[in-house]
């Protein structure tokens, strides 16, 4: 997909000391997002606050909606009004968004949603970290669908991946999630925002042909139809109902198969282009530690200790968590003795690792019921167990 330089107006170039939440807001502005609808929820609110403060002077609009259902609803409307749009939330808010997430998926509406995860279930530990929404975000809305989710492990990556999230969202006309957590969200680190011309931005792919020929959908399972902007005379229709290329309801099982296959395949068939991983000392490793987000930084310490103890341990960090890197995991599962999967939940992504490894190696879950990051020694113990 074509990339252009970012609009310098939204880009706060330079070196900053920012927390992850604020870096997400800067990433959104750099990516050309000019509409933000949100509802306050710990520990994500700082993103909304930053956007609210910054947007009037860069030509954007912030609205605090009455709840998260309304926030994501407003994004659907604003995206078809021509804007790049985002919201931010945490577990309980994500739960509320799930129905309209389905609407966004079904209408193929681009948007970015950051989930600064906290410990649950329910109100749980609102001010403490978790990675417990990993499956909710993937499966929580009803029906079959795909989304894209990225998981930053630092404020710098919060910035970088938010820009990337917008680009993916425009490329595939799909909601893209930033799955971060309270620790990264509230951690202050150096964040370097490049000059605008060094930031690649995918602009909205707007339809250019004759008005009467416009079709909001094409069910190719590979790419997506261009969009239009309400008010430009295309008189488009979109619906959450099963629909044809014109966007009109087409309520048959055959059409639903076309639509659902497309929604899934446009992501699955492009998975190799979407998925980003970071691997370290994977060749010749006996044990591979698979992690994402803040947990990968704890893993660094655990692996360092393991190597000092003479264990050949490699790491694989999922920068893209959804779609899941099943091919790479399957390949590596044939080469290592075991995989260790620490995550700040009772075992979620480990199921994907296990499924992808398909019995070729042991897969050891290192769960944590959330509220804190792991003690590196707990991960170390699992690595030691895995190496025997």
């Amino acid at each position, binding site marked *: 997909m074509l990339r252009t330089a970012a609009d310098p107006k939204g880009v706060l170039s330079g070196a900053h000391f920012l927390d992850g939440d604020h870096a997400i807001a800067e990433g959104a502005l750099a990516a050309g997002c000019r509409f933000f609808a949100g509802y306050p929820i710990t520990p994500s609110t700082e993103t909304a606050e930053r956007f609210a403060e910054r947007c009037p002077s860069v030509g954007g*609009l912030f609205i605090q*909606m009455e709840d998260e*259902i309304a926030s994501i*609803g407003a994004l659907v409307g604003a995206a078809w*009004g021509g804007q790049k749009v985002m919201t931010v939330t945490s577990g309980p808010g994500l739960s509320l968004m799930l129905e309209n997430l*389905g609407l966004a998926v079904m209408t193929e509406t681009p948007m970015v949603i950051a989930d600064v995860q906290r410990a649950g279930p329910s109100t749980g530990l609102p001010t403490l970290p978790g990675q417990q929404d990993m499956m909710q975000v993937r499966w929580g809305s009803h029906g079959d669908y795909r989304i894209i989710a990225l998981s930053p492990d630092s404020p710098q990556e919060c910035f970088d991946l938010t820009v990337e999230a917008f680009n993916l969202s425009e490329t595939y006309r799909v909601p893209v999630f930033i799955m971060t957590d309270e620790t990264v969200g509230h951690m202050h680190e150096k964040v370097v925002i490049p000059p605008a011309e060094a930031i690649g931005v995918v602009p909205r792919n707007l339809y250019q042909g004759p008005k009467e020929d416009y079709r909001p959908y094409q069910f190719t399972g590979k790419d997506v139809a261009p969009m239009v902007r309400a008010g430009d005379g*295309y008189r488009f229709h979109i*619906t959450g109902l099963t629909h044809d290329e014109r966007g009109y309801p087409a309520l048959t099982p055959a059409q639903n198969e076309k639509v659902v296959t497309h929604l899934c395949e446009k992501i699955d068939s492009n998975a190799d282009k979407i998925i980003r991983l970071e691997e370290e000392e994977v060749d010749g490793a006996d044990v591979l530690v698979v992690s994402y987000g803040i947990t990968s930084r704890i893993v660094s310490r655990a692996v360092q200790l393991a190597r000092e103890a003479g264990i050949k341990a490699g790491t694989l960090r999922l920068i893209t968590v959804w779609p899941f890197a099943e091919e790479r995991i399957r390949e590596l599962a044939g080469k290592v003795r075991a995989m260790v999967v620490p995550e700040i939940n009772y075992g979620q992504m480990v199921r994907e690792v296990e499924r992808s490894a398909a019995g070729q190696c042991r897969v050891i879950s290192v769960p944590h019921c959330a509220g804190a990051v792991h003690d590196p020694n707990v991960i170390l113990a699992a690595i030691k167990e895995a190496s025997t």
Partner: protein
Amino acid sequence: MSTALDEATFRSESPMAEFLRMERMPHIWCPGCGIGSVVNCFAEAVKKSGFDMDKLAVVSGIGCSGRVAGYVKLDSIHTTHGRAVPVATGLALANPELKVVVFSGDGDIVGIGGNHFIHAARRNMDLMVICINNFTYGMTGGQVTPTTPQTANASTTPYGNYEYPFSLPFLADACGATYVARWTSLHARNVTKSIREALNHKGFSFIEVISPCTTLYQRRNRLGDGMDALSYYREEAEVEKEVDTRDVGIDFQGDITMGRFVRREKPTYLDAVNERYANVLGDEYQLYGMTTPEREEKERREAEGRAKARAQMEDEEARLMAEDLGADEEGLG
């Protein structure tokens, strides 16, 4: 003349062809349902007002009324149950050139979507909300709604409704709506005129249209067919001027007070945003790249346009009165 030819003629030559997606006809609504009448009024109002249809968008939720978005030849979004207002809010704010109209039913807008409705009214969001109130959830089979009058029978109140209903004009008024009216689907000219007024109103306008659900509400309550419903409206619905919205509740088959209850000028949400930011940030504030002088010029032109449209409506009204037409259906003056 063959049926096929009739259909083709209907599609191409219907007076609604310009306004409806004729390729989607016939619609799904039952015989005697009032939704189609309201859509007709809407089309008529748009036509009369000369409003640029490219700048008009319709957003709807779920239910029978939710299907309106799919039939009108406008930019249109058919959303989830109760969520038309937030989607419309996003659309209107993302492209302030648009006039966004929400078509809804009673269950959709004040049942599941009640929270969004009251907040959009509170913000004076520049939206027109048309609620076709038939006192029932039609699409799901006739369940009780927040507007069902007490004692009325519904599939989930098989022994008669015991809940206190909302009076929608009172709710809208109390929440801050700046245009509030109620009619019935029988009073097509009033509905048309009211929609036309709302098209030229800047801010949150709410028009309730009491309308029959013949298949469920009428039948379940043994109230006869669509004609019987319209007879009831003719007998019991009265236009009242200067009425307090606290006094317009509707009892089962009781009086229906109609009229334009509220019309007041108040800055819209976006007006308030613009004013606040322009005051604090001066020239630095440029929503979607528009400078303050550019915006003020645009607002001035729009206000002139609205004033002109209003004057034109008043002239027409005076002419009609002079010709002694429409004297029996006043109430908008």
